[in-house]
Structure formats: structure tokens, C-alpha cells
């Protein structure tokens, strides 16, 4: 996972929507700067100019009226600019669209790729891979409270409601990784409910999705096999799925290809052994209040378990 300045920024657009909004923002910004300078300038002159002499209230009133009229004109222009930008991507393009379903949970993102035949439907979490140059339609809903889906480099945000589906779409026009974050206050760990959007050239994307469709890899070393045993006989199976095993619960994120992701804990920690160990044994220390209980793994079992999890590419 490479962080860089602007990985989660309105000002560094990576797709057509964010680009147009950024353009609109610049228009508004310049208007704002000019208006502010003129207003505050007029006020300063009003204070420090030489006062006295005859007062011409009628002339002054005409000037004030003119300022009012100019205000109206400027606002109308901005209104039109805003409406044009808004309608430019109001409708989802119908050609060549890829569908992704997102389900918000306190405090992580469940991601589905429903376009593939049902039993090979891809489920992942907190990481959204998209092909460059292809519009992606998102169906957003929530499992519990209201969340808001926002990847500023790509597009504006849209809320996730329980018992309702909202639709959004965006497109990446260059490969890269961008971070997004829940933007509607959703409780204790609202601050740590992030995700990454990874835009890849189509062939790389296809490679990724092919891999995601496979069940979890079988352990290849005795260590990993022991780890799998720990996983399947422990409390992990109460909440998590690893396809190809008996772990089928859907309370927490799907772990089938955990090791192919860049982060854990909803975009909070880089995926490495140390972080994984910390998370498995005491997730509450890292994200207080999150739904993952502390797991008491005997020390002899911890390393094999981590080895197994890290093998789930």
C-alpha cells in the first residue's frame, strides 16, 4: 500500500466526475475570491477615505441597488454552471457498465461483484478493484445505520441506508490507488471505516477477479494446515467466511482472499504479520468498540494461524 499526498483528495481528480467537479470548484473559488476582495476592500475604503462634504444618499442607493443586481446575476451564472455539471453525470451510462454492490457495516465495507455467475460471485471487503476506463455502477445499502460512500478522487459521496438501495457510478481514467472513507457519522469507529479503490488496466483487473473467484487456497505447509485447523475450530468461524472451508458466516468480512488485500481493519492497518497478530489477538485495542471480540489464541497456535491467513492470497 503506497500512500501519497492526495490519495484521498478532492483536489487531485482521477476520474471524469471528480474532474468536472474540480473544474466547477475552481470557478466558484475564483468568484469567491473576487467577491471577498471587492467587499472587504470597499469596507476598508469606507473606513479610511476622507469623509465629509455633501451626502448623496440617492446616488449611494443606486450603487447599492446595482451591487444587488450584480449579485443576482453572478448567482444565476453559478447556478447554471452547477446545474450543467450536475446533469453531466446524473445518469449512469448504459454501455459496458460493471456492477458492484456495497453494503455498509459498523465499521467496514462489504463488496460484491454480482456480474459473474451466482456461485462464482465475488465477495471481498474494504478494497474495490475496478478496471480503468470502464464506468462502474454501485448499488449501496447498509446493514445497520446510515453510512456514506466517498472516494473523493473519483466522485462525490452518496449515503447508504438500511432497507434501501442508492445508486452511484464513477469511472477511473488512470490506474492508481485512492482511499475513501465513510462520511456519515456512524458510531464509535466512524473514523476508521475506510477503503481503497484500486484502478487497474483491464487485463490486470481480469487477473484479479479470476483469482477472487477461486476458493481459498489450501494450506501447503504443515504450519499453515495447523493454522487452518485453529481457524476452523476457533471462534473465527462464527463470523467469517473462507470459501472452500466450513467457515461460512457473514457477520464479519469475507477472508477467502485476505492476503491479496493491502490493508486490514477497514483501511486502518497495512497487512503484515505484526498488524495481523495485533488485530487477531486484541482488535479492541486498535479500534475500540468494533465488533471483533478479543480472541484468546494460545501462543503456540498464533504463528501457524497467521501463516495460514497470510497464505490466503
Amino acid at each position, binding site marked *: 500500500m503506497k500512500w501519497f499526498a492526495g490519495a484521498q483528495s478532492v483536489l487531485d481528480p482521477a476520474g471524469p466526475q471528480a474532474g468536472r467537479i474540480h473544474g466547477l470548484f475552481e470557478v466558484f473559488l475564483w468568484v469567491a475570491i473576487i467577491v471577498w476582495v471587492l467587499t472587504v476592500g470597499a469596507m476598508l475604503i469606507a473606513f479610511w477615505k476622507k469623509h465629509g462634504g455633501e451626502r*448623496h444618499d440617492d446616488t449611494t442607493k443606486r450603487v*447599492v441597488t446595482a451591487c444587488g443586481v450584480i*449579485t443576482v446575476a453572478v448567482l444565476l451564472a*453559478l447556478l447554471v454552471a452547477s446545474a450543467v455539471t450536475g446533469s453531466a453525470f446524473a445518469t449512469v451510462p448504459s454501455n459496458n457498465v460493471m456492477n458492484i454492490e456495497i453494503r455498509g457495516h459498523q465499521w467496514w465495507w462489504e463488496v460484491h461483484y454480482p456480474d459473474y455467475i451466482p456461485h462464482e460471485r465475488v465477495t471481498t471487503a474494504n478494497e474495490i478493484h475496478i478496471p480503468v476506463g470502464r464506468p462502474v455502477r454501485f448499488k449501496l445499502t447498509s446493514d445497520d445505520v446510515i453510512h456514506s460512500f466517498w472516494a473523493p478522487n473519483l466522485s462525490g*459521496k452518496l449515503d447508504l441506508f438500511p432497507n434501501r438501495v442508492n445508486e452511484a457510478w464513477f469511472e477511473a481514467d488512470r490506474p492508481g490507488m485512492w482511499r475513501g472513507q465513510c462520511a456519515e457519522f456512524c*458510531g464509535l469507529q466512524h473514523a476508521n471505516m475506510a477503503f481503497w479503490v484500486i484502478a487497474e488496466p483491464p487485463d490486470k483487473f481480469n487477473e484479479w477477479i479470476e483469482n477472487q473467484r477461486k476458493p481459498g487456497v489450501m494450506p501447503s505447509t504443515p504450519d499453515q494446515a495447523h493454522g487452518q485447523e485453529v481457524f476452523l475450530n476457533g471462534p473465527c468461524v462464527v463470523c467469517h467466511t473462507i470459501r472452500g472451508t466450513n467457515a461460512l458466516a457473514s457477520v464479519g468480512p469475507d477472508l477467502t482472499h485476505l492476503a491479496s488485500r493491502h490493508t486490514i481493519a477497514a483501511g486502518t492497518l497495512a497487512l503484515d504479520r505484526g498488524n495481523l497478530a495485533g488485530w487477531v489477538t486484541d482488535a479492541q485495542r486498535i479500534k*475500540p468498540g468494533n465488533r471483533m471480540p478479543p480472541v484468546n489464541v494460545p501462543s503456540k497456535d498464533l504463528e501457524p494461524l497467521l501463516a495460514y491467513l497470510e497464505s490466503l492470497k
Partner: protein
Amino acid sequence: MTPTQEAVERGTVDLSALDRSWAPPQGLLGWFRQVNHQNIGKRYIVTAFIFFILGGIEALLMRLQLAQPQNRLLNPDLYNQIFTTHGSTMMFLFAVPVMEGMGVYLVPMMVGTRNVAFPRLNAFGYYMYLFGGLFLYAGVFLHIGPDAGWFAYTPLSGPLYDPGKRTDFWAQMITFTEMSALVVAVELIVTIMKMRAPGMSLNRIPMFVWAMFIQSFMVMFAMPAVMACSGMLLFDRSVGTHFFNPAEGGDPMLWQHIFWFFGHPEVYIIFVPALGMISHIVETFSRRPILGYTALVLSQIATGFIGFGLWVHHMFATGLPQLGESFFTAASMMIAIPTGVQIFCWIATIWTGRPTLKIPLLYIAGFIAIFVIGGLSGVMIASVPLDLQVHDTFFIVAHFHYVLIGGAVVPLLGGIYFWFPKMTGRMMNDAVGTLSFWLTFIGFNITFFPMHILGLHGMPRRVYTYLPQTGWGDLNLLATCGAFILAIGFIVFVLNALSASQNGPAAGSNPWGSSNIEWSTPSPPPHYNFANIPVIRGREPMWTDPEPPVVTGLDDSRREVLVTNTLDAEPEHRYILPGPTIWPFLLAVTTTIGFIGTVFQMWWGVWGAALSFIPLVGWFWPRERPRPDLLESGCGSGGIE
């Protein structure tokens, strides 16, 4: 010669009788029987500032927590309680009540009467506000402060995701404070309609009075909405109704609609009184009548109306139909027009006047510099595409602090500086005042300007922490430093006020040379405000008509005021106001018992109502025996109309 002395010499007033009839009750018990608008108004202002300090401490705690990434000063639970309490305090326990307090104190004096129309209701409203605030803070100090945000979105605030009593404390605090705001609104409207001094026709009403009049109407139609939805939330939480429960056909969107139908006008409820104060300060220190009186009044009325048509712009990200959104975009941009017109009028007044940059005017200059930024970022977020990017980010935090601190608190401080001599009879210290202004102004901008940039760089609101890799650390640290400068600025202001109230130089009745009649009475004013009710013959009576004719024939031996008609303020009848009484306080206590009990067990609502019966009967029970002189004149036997 003071106007009072003059009136005594003219033989139109019996000062000792006035003193006796309007004397405040004495002793500890007397404190609870007080019904004079000056005392109640001051209580509102002082109480609101105490809550302001508490809200400020919460703000500083949040800024400390965010000063660096992954800070561990506050845990997420505490942080959520603190930001919720901060927002709720500033909106419900500071901003609205302090404006109400200014209104309760100033309006009767500015319209030339002796008290508000319903003095006992006024006292009752204050106690409700006080008890509501104490109730919320009892929760906070018991570590069961509300934690679902000041906007308490369902289902996060609903019974499923917020068990316990936290949100119930919050919702019931709303009932308390809104009740208080509503009674103040009613009594101010009636005071302004029916109790203006003779001759104060609509086109001579002082700007601040207009502002409170408009604000009160907004309160009347906005506050019931929040009472309704917080009540519905309480029912959902305590007796299992389903208003906001999507599983049984309820709708979380319903909460957002009702809440913002209140929540957006709320902003203008805070802002409009400040607009009124600004006009008086600009006029006084420009030493010329305000330019565009009619335009200013109409702009405020327009603001009041449009303010009710904007609520959906808080909900652009919820996925509403596009057509509806466009309407609300247009309305949200249009509200900039009346505000712009007012700013132009003020600048033009200064331009064509002979301004002296005294401290209240300095605050107005600060207001324009800050508020215009907030207004312009407001135009940005009225645009749906831009709002979808910056909604619920620190950009919004910056925006509304620019609007609310810049638009309401800065003019309020200017207004307090301006009317302080009237309230206390003493002047605040100018050197200290200048210092506090600049600390506030600079601290404010250092705190909140960086937040615009943070928001554009992707930092969401209401996060208790953030990762170091985000690069948000430096600007957050800067904002935290600014917050402390800002806090010092406020503290210096408060210390200045405290010290001046004890040792400040005497002010005299009209230290600034202002134009309106509240400056004709001594500072601090007598309990009856004016020895003689003046007759108003112009818009700037102190400038054009310093020795006006007066009203005679009011009975000084009891609390009698003059009722005039709405349009032209022609005398209609005399009106006897009630004197000190304990019943409003007792009614507030019994209502409080009912309200607090209800949070735990719904039946307490019934017990509270039953208990309230006693003080209500006491309240309405006629005390005065019909006066013999009245009976003789035939007034006592009916047939008056």
C-alpha cells in the same frame, strides 16, 4: 438634566410610586419570584455564556485530540459524547438563548414599554431553559452524555444502536429548551405588536426589534418541528413506536426531513438577531441614519421566508431526485441575495457617514471580513456537485463556523460591548477590548481557515482520529493552536466585562451618542425602564427629537403599561402586568419532574401533568381584588367593548 429629573419636574411622574410598584422582590426567595424583563434577560445572557464556556472547553478538548494523528487523549466514546454535547450546547444552550436574552432585555426598552407582555411566562421560559441545560450536563457528567451527534440521525440514535439513556437525555433537553424559545418568541411578538410606545409605527421600529420580531416568527414555525421529531424519537426509544424504524415501515429519512426543517431555520434564528444588532452599531458609529432601512427590513423578512425553503441542502448526499435538488440549490443560493443587500447597505452607511472606529464597529468590520467568507463557501455548498464532495467534511465545519461565529458570535460580542454600558452603567475597557478583538479575530481564522483545506483533502467530520499517512496532521496542529488563541480572546473579553461591571467608568445615559430611545433612560435603567413613556416622532428619536412629549396618565401605583395598535402604535388601552410571583418557578419544577421522569418511565408524563395542576391554578388564580375606583368608573362590570 436627565430625562427622569426632567419628567419629575414636569410633574408627569411619581417616581417613588413607580419604584415601589416595579421593585424587584428581595431575598433568596425573591430571586425565584423575579419577573422583570431586565433581570430575566440578564439571566439568559449570563447563563448562555456559562454554557458557551462549557461548549468552548469541549471544543478545546476536541482540538487537542485532533492535534496529532492517532492521539490517545480521548477515546472514541468520549470524543463522540464531547462533539455531540459541543454542538448541542452551542446551538440549543448558547446561541439561541443568548439571542433570546438580548431580545428579552432590549426589546421592551427599545419599543418604549416597561416589561414584556407576559412577564410570568418569561420567567417560566428561563427556568425551563436552565433546567434543560442542567439536565443535559447531568448526563454528561454522569458519563451518559449523548453520543449520536447534535443532529441525532436515526437509526444510529434509535433504540437498536443507541441503547441506554444517552439520546433520551438529549431529546428531552430539546423539549426543555424549545419550550423556552417558544414562549420567548410569543411574548416578544406580542410585546412588539401591542406594546410599542405611541407613534412608533411600523416604519419607525428599531432594526433590532424588527430582527427579533422576524426571528420570533421563525422560532414559532421551526421549533415545533424539532419538538415533534425529538418527541417521536423518544417514543421510538421508550415505548416501541416505529416512526424511524425501517423494519416496520418507518423511515430514517423522515427524521432528516423534520430535523432539517427545523435545523436550517435554526441557523437564521441565530443569525437574524445579529443582523439587527449590526444595524444599530453601524448607524451609531457612522453617525448618520442607517441607509436603506426599508431594504434592510425587507431583506430580513426575505431571509426569514427563504430560510424555510433550504432544509434539503443538508440532505443532498442521501440520493434524492435531481429535480428536487435543483430547486433547493436555487433557494440556497438565493438566500445570499438579501444577506448581500444588507452588507452593501452597511458598507454604504459607513461610506457616506463619518465613521469612528470604536470597538463595537471594529467587531462589525471583523464580522464582514469573516462572514463573507462563510457566505461564499455557503454558495459553494449550495451547488449539489460541490456539496457531494465536501459534505460532511471539515470544509463544512469551517463553513458553518465562519457563518455562525462570524455571523452571530462576533456581532453579538460587538453588541454586548455596545449595550454593556446600558445594562451595567459602566464602560468596558477599550485597550483590553481591542486586544480581545484581535485575539479573537486572528485566533478564529487560524483555527477555521485550515479546515477548508483539510476538508478538500478528504478529512471527514466527526472523526476522533486519523492516520498519520493522511498528511492532515500539520493543519490540524495549526487549527489547535488557533483554537487556544481564540479561547484566550474570549476569556479576555469575559474578564473585561467582569472587571468593567465592577470598576468601569460610569457610562451616562447615552455614551455612544446613539439614536434610539433605550439610550434616553439612565444607565443602568430603572426597573420600570422609563420614568415617562416617550412619544415617538421619528426613526432616530435621540438625534432628531431629544425632548419628546410623553405619555401621562398611567397609574404608577401598579404595574401598568400602555397597549397600542399594531400598525401605527396608537394607544388602545392600559394593561396591568403581574408582579413578582413564585408560580412560574414552581410550574417549571413540576414540568421538569414530568419531563425527566418521562425519560425513565412514560407514566411520569401523567404525574408531571397532575403535579403541574397546582402551580397552574396558583398562576391563574386572581389575586387582586377588584379596585373600588375601577368599579365606580364602570370598568369592572363588563360591557367594555
